[in-house]
């Protein structure tokens, strides 16, 4: 055994390895991405098949196939990826698995870097499969192994749902570094079992509904479903996930109330809860996202005619949306336990301030100065900035729509570029641009999509446009990586997660193969050429594509940088036009930060007096 300080995602990866995982696949998505990265790093002998699949649905299906042959499979994604994979998962839940399948779907309360605040626990209930809900990094390491055991015992896919604060938290974890992948027995054909037909679904659905309460019964003895604090008390806090960690922070060592940790929200460990709630008159539920446990407890009370009162999101005791905080949960519990009221808690800091002022302990602080807002922006030298700017410049004065997509380039919406009119979900830009086109054929439509997103779900949209004869220019922002989630390779990069050099799939070849008549590849950092390519495409009907090809600046050390010479007239055109974070005004002079400048030279190309020069570092 070895102990190491590690990220939650690495702990999940090492937990899967300790469970003898044979196949690990997924699609990058914050906060889940580092799980596959970590398995690939640990897979020196290539004994595990590790892949970034083309999207989450593909990953789920690769795992289903391998599982039928008896392999243990880990599938990773963020929770919105679960929407993409749900077609496969929903059916897999009915067919069942042979080798254990653990699906990690990382939730993102807040949301911090996501489009929705959906709750994977609810998805587990919808799929009728078990879900484990870790409250710490250490627990996540153990739970992924337990999840494999349950998956194989009950022949069902199992969900593990960490949240951002588990995935991206760090802790010391002791792990088994000698673990080897399990022996895979091999696929035994059995069409009665592996071919989904209504007959199979009918029989298996009934079996699943009979089985789930049995799993709930077994979960009632599961080690992480545990009661802390006092016995024979009238008040209890029921908590799950990160909510449990926040509640524990406030309630540790207390005997006047109990804290009930529910680590397996579905199937509900009924016997455990009924025992834990015996004699309890009031329950406060602490959980992020959906009021899942709260509704389960209400249902339990109805089913067993219990008289405890349930407080939580439905009663206004805790928020229905957003991320929990330690102090927010502390206040909820403090008020619940009658230690103070919300009003008192809010008054407290004011009273403290007045006391400090009277005692002279602190000088009267001036009014807090206005804080600068820091919306995330494209990096200095990012080629996406140049691509957006080229389209903007070429379309100046024309009616044009700019449909965006998911990735770093969503940040093209920021001022002064202001080049993203819509963004919905992975791959939607291309198809939404078609919808916009059919409502107003006189407006020129552009869709922006990154290279990784193109492979994930952009190709079908292009086929749709060609087939239905839409007018559209697709701008593929090809930076040769999946930048936003931490630079994962994809089919266009020529590398895979087994460390092999593989054939690159040519985006240009795909586009031409789909019948696009015009496909222009251009370096966006050459502004004049890029603008010309955009103009050319905008003039033509049909589906056209521009491949803006330039690698992500975070991947290499810049060899050049730009500097402002004394020819600068201080017109700030560079700042107003492109909004590069390396350019700022210092002591009334335009300056370029030498540390972050990559020498992309875009600013030099927009300077009206040629005052910016590129030099070798």
């Amino acid at each position, binding site marked *: 055994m070895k102990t190491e*300080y590690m990220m939650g995602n690495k702990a999940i990866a090492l937990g899967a390895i300790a469970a003898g995982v044979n196949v690990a696949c997924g699609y990058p998505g*914050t*906060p889940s991405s580092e799980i596959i990265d970590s398995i690939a790093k640990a897979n020196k002998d290539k004994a595990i098949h590790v892949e970034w699949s083309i999207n989450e649905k593909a990953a789920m299906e690769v795992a289903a196939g391998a599982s039928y042959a008896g392999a243990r499979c880990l599938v990773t994604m963020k929770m919105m990826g679960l929407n993409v994979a749900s077609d496969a998962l929903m059916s897999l839940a009915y067919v069942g698995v042979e080798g254990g399948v653990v699906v990690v779907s990382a939730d993102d309360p807040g949301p*911090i*870097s996501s489009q929705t605040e959906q709750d994977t626990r609810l998805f587990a209930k919808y799929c009728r499969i078990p879900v484990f809900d870790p409250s*710490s*990094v250490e627990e996540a390491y153990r739970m992924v192994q337990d999840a494999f055991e349950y998956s194989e015992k009950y022949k069902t896919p199992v969900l593990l749902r960490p949240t951002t*604060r*588990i995935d*991206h*938290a*760090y*802790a*010391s974890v002791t792990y088994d570094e000698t673990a080897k992948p399990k022996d895979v027995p091999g696929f035994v054909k059995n069409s009665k079992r592996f071919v989904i037909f209504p007959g199979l679904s009918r029989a298996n659905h009934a079996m699943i509904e009979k089985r789930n309460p049995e799993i709930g019964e077994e979960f009632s003895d599961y080690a992480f479903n545990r009661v802390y604090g006092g016995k024979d008390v009238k008040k209890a806090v029921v908590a799950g996930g*990160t909510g449990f*960690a*926040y509640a*524990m*922070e406030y309630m*540790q060592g207390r005997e006047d109330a109990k804290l009930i940790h529910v680590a397996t929200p579905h199937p509900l460990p009924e016997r455990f809860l009924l025992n834990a709630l015996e004699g309890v008159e009031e329950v406060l539920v602490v959980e992020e996202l959906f009021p899942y446990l709260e509704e389960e407890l209400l249902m339990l009370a109805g089913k067993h005619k219990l008289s405890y009162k349930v407080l939580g999101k439905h009663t206004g005791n805790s928020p229905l949306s957003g991320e929990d*905080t*330690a*102090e927010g949960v*502390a206040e909820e519990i403090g008020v619940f336990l009658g230690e103070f009221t919300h009003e008192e808690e809010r008054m407290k800091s004011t009273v*403290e301030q007045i006391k400090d002022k009277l005692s002279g302990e*602190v*000088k*009267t*602080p*001036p009014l*807090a*100065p*206005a*804080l*600068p*807002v*820091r*919306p*995330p*922006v*494209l*990096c200095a030298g990012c080629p996406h900035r140049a691509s957006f700017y080229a389209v903007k410049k070429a379309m100046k004065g024309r009616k044009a729509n700019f449909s965006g997509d998911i990735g*770093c380039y969503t*940040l093209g919406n*920021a*001022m*002064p570029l202001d080049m993203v009119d819509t963004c919905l979900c992975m791959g939607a830009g291309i198809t939404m641009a078609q919808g916009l086109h059919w409502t107003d054929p006189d407006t020129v439509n552009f869709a922006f999509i990154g290279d990784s997103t193109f492979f994930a779900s952009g190709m079908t949209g292009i086929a749709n446009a060609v087939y239905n004869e839409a007018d559209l220019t697709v701008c593929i922002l090809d930076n040769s990586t999946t930048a*936003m*989630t931490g630079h994962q390779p994809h089919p266009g990069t020529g590398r895979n997660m087994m460390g092999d050099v593989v054939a690159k799939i040519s985006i240009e070849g795909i586009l031409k193969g789909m019948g696009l008549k015009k496909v222009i590849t251009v370096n966006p950092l050459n502004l004049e050429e890029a603008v010309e390519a955009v103009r050319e495409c905008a003039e033509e009907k049909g589906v056209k594509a521009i491949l803006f090809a330039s690698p992500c600046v975070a991947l290499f050390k810049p060899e050049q940088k730009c500097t402002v010479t004394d020819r600068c007239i201080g017109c*700030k055109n560079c*700042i*107003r036009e492109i*909004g*590069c*974070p390396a*350019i*700022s*005004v210092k002591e009334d002079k335009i300056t370029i930060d030498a*540390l*972050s400048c990559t020498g992309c030279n875009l600013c030099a190309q927009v300077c009206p007096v040629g005052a910016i020069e590129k030099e070798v570092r």
Partner: protein
Amino acid sequence: MSYNILLCGVGGQGTVLASKLLAATACKTGITVHSAETIGMAQRGGPVTSHVRLGEDAYAPLIPKKKADLIIAFEPAEAVRNLGYLKKGGAVIVNSSPIKPVTESLHPAGYDGSEMTKYLEGFVKRLVVVDADDLCKDLGSAKFFNVAVLGLALGAGLLSFTKEDMLSTIETTVKEAFAEINKKAFITGLAAGEAARQANPELAVPGEAREMSKRNLTDEEEKHFLAVKEEIEEKRRKAAEGVKS
């Protein structure tokens, strides 16, 4: 008992490495540690924070408001943004040189960082204001501030580690090619920290963070340490004389 350290700054300033070094040192010395970072979308020039929690009874991944013993701010406005986390009587180390967001360049509101440090001076008694560019001028780049500021925190008596432990963590954590320069950065900070502590006797609270060990520095480290310290004291003398005359 727990000791909570909040590191804050702007994406790209290296707060993550700093928190890793703190956590790794804690682990090595047998202190239970948990930490959490904001990464992802926020990385692209947005505000970033790392919550480092030392001690057995820290369960929550994030530090509760008003529970941070120490805030290490890599940028003045970020210090003010996160001031709500500071416990009553807690300590703050802040870099005074601002990072102006693009929005400030587009629509100047006059943000220059000094309004933030002035505000902090009115609020926080245990405060160290340091100019990262100035502190790192011998290191060739302000990007080494992330390691220098750890030395500063230790020198100021705000961390419970030893010099030896921290230096060996730096050695094993950062890439070999950068180990020497980062160790130099740490020593630079250490000297500045000790100077800050002499200037403000209230900065360190005995027992809050254990006194650092007296491990001898190597000759070269010692020389550098003394040189930086001398320079800072010289500057302070001059400033004091300036005030008098």
